[in-house]
């Protein structure tokens, strides 16, 4: 395909020491599950079994909640914010020091390219702890009244697409505000959360402040419906979010949900098209499209649609799919067989409903879970691929003629997480940003995240904000 082939540039996995099996991290120690079973975490790039992980049952969840409550009452809640801050700073530094190891482990367990885990995930993970550490002794200045109080024990369930980053988004603000946590990572990507448990030990965080329990959906359900939880935080699918919202109905539990999305990425005719194409690629193929805010619906103005598509296809031909640990890899593995099946199901529906699929020539590895980057043209708003979250490297292309039409199509979704706008006209950006029903609008850029910047959705994309000063609200009694 290209004139010069890339030589393989694999990152060594020798830096990572994966244990054959892991217990649950409760009250500062790794313990065997008392009534749970075990499951295996596999490398989605080659289906190698990486480790055996415990599945927490009711008694284990009880134990974790009890430990968290005790730590909240006796240690973490009464501790001055300035002291809590020091622990969070310690954690931020330890993550930075061990970031290469954690990046490799993240790529092994999740399938994402090392380029992304190394350059995006890990720097952000450290920065979220660093940012919220600074808030711990300044909460009275955060705009929630003179003496905002923590809630208690936070039950947190996170997804598999950004395992460590989602952990940071949940744990850093919770701890800064004086809460203690019980967190359940996704069953397909538990290993970096368990490595984080070791970091808590290295930081000498008081026992029980952070508890990590592993398991599948049932464990998560037990956790979020536990009577000891004062706060429930969930990132994941809208369907599960809906169930959780029902489970906490009628209780005093505070709830924040970060759910799905079907973001529009709008390209106006006057956009800098080469930059826009980079943004489209980043918007949908970053992290294999396993991004709730992915720009999965491209809305391109009709007059430039052909040109944009041509440039996009040319650009897609240079994307390298393969070994996540290879530093040249752009597109890694799909996280699980289950997710791959869902992507295949939805793309089959796209073809069946009359849209045209196109993918660049690309070698698919024989083992592991893989899906070539795909673009669908001839998509109508009624097609499933334009309405449902695919959560994979699949882009649906629609066109529009007028700015009003672009906004109407962009907003024609039950979701409201993110949107993108590409135009060189500043007043149009400001207008579109106002009109778009989304919690985050990226103009002439896409998929940017920062600890100081609030992130979260409208409508069926959930409620609450993570990041920035706004992210504190979820963990304070206000």
């Amino acid at each position, binding site marked *: 395909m290209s004139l010069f082939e890339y030589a393989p540039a694999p990152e060594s996995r020798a830096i990572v020491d994966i244990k054959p099996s892991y217990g649950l991290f409760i009250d500062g120690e790794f313990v065997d599950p008392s009534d749970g079973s075990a499951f295996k975490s596999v490398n989605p790039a080659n289906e190698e079994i990486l480790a055996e992980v415990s599945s927490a049952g009711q008694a284990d969840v009880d134990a974790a909640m009890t430990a968290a409550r005790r730590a909240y009452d006796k240690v973490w809640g009464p501790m001055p914010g300035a002291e809590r801050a020091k622990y969070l700073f310690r954690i931020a530094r330890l993550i930075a020091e061990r970031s290469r190891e954690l990046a490799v482990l993240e790529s092994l367990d999740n399938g994402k390219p090392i380029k992304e885990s190394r350059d995006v995930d890990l720097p952000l993970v450290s920065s979220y702890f660093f940012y919220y550490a600074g808030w711990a002794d300044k909460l009275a200045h955060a705009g*929630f009244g003179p003496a905002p109080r923590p809630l208690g024990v936070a039950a947190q369930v996170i997804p598999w697409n950004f395992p460590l980053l989602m952990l940071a988004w949940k744990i850093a603000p919770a701890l800064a505000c004086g809460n203690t946590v019980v967190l359940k990572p996704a069953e397909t990507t538990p290993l970096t959360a368990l490595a984080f448990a070791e970091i808590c030990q290295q930081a000498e965080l008081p026992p029980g402040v952070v508890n990590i329990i592993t398991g599948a959906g049932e464990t998560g359900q037990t956790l979020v419906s536990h009577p000891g939880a004062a706060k429930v935080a969930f990132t994941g699918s809208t369907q599960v979010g809906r169930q959780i*919202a029902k489970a906490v109905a009628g209780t005093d539990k505070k709830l924040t*949900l970060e759910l799905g999305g079907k973001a529009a990425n709008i390209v106006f005719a006057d956009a800098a098209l080469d930059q826009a194409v980079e943004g489209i690629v980043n918007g949908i193929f970053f992290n294999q499209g396993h991004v709730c805010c992915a720009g999965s619906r491209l809305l391109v103005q009709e007059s430039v649609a052909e040109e944009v598509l041509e440039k996009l296809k040319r650009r897609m031909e240079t994307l390298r799919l393969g070994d996540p640990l290879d530093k040249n890899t752009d597109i890694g593995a799909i996280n699980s067989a289950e997710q791959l099946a869902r992507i295949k199901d939805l793309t089959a529906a796209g073809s069946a409903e009359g849209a045209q699929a196109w993918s660049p020539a690309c070698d698919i590895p024989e083992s592991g879970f893989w899906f070539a980057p795909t673009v669908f043209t001839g998509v109508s708003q009624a097609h499933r691929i334009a309405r449902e979250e695919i959560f994979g490297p699949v882009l649906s292309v629609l066109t529009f003629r007028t700015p009003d039409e672009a906004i109407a199509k962009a907003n024609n979704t039950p979701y409201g997480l993110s949107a993108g706008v590409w135009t060189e006209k500043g007043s149009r950006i400001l207008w579109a940003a106002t009109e778009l029903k989304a*919690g*985050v609008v990226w103009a002439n850029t896409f998929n940017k995240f920062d600890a*100081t910047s*609030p992130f979260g959705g*409208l409508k069926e994309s959930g*409620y609450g904000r993570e990041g920035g000063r706004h992210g504190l609200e979820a963990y304070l009694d206000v």
Partner: protein
Amino acid sequence: MSKRVSVRKTYKLYVGGKFPRSESGRTYLVTASDGSLLANAARASRKDVRDAVAAARKAQPGWAGATAYLRGQITYRVAEMVEGRRGQFIEELRNSGATIKAAEAEVDATVDRLVWYAGWADKLPQVLGGANPVAGPFFNHSTPEPVGVAAMVAPQNDALLGLVSVIAPAIVTGNTVVVLASQDRPLPAVALAEALATSDVPGGVVNILTGQVAELTPWFASHADVNAVDLCGVADADLARDAETAAAETLTRVLRPANPDWNADPGLDRLRRFVEIKTVWHPAGV
């Protein structure tokens, strides 16, 4: 000489800037504390809820699109109207059982509350939003935007002050509301509707229904075109739980039942609950 016969008032709903009767033709008896007849208030139906939500939805973009300065001015104008009808409001509250002293205090507090919230309209975006110092060359800015249409069950006590305390924060932030008045003390709410109708608040921005909490709350909660449900005045825990469960189906924002001291400083709490924070990123550089 014959005694003059007074002209009695028909109490109606307030929907889309008009004063319709309930489409169901139903009314319910509102009595004074001594049991005497005060009025036959309109008993709103599910269809009235739908009409009110449609009116609120229609009014929402225009109201949200008005400048914050204008929303503040209009909210202040509501305060003027309530002040101007002070006697009427005191009378309505006295009919609901309040002493003259308590009624006067509640009307004063209501006017002051409206003035307080009026001032927030063009300040809240600066207090809740602002530039985010991201680690990179970006202009990154957060602003509060209205949630959209809010369906509210007003507090059952403090029939005027409580009502205004839930409506005002929602509308100054650009939302439009459908509010179910206190079931047993709905008359101050009807009087408020008359003040609103003459205060430059566009029709549909505030819609006031009278009727039964148990009957209408489920329709508020399950309506798919409602963006936030405020269960403030729902005293029945089962009813509130069922409403929250129904709202979860469309992930509608829910404010759980609350019984705060409406005379206390409300802070930003209710203002914050009716906004969504939008963050806009743009690269910075040449």
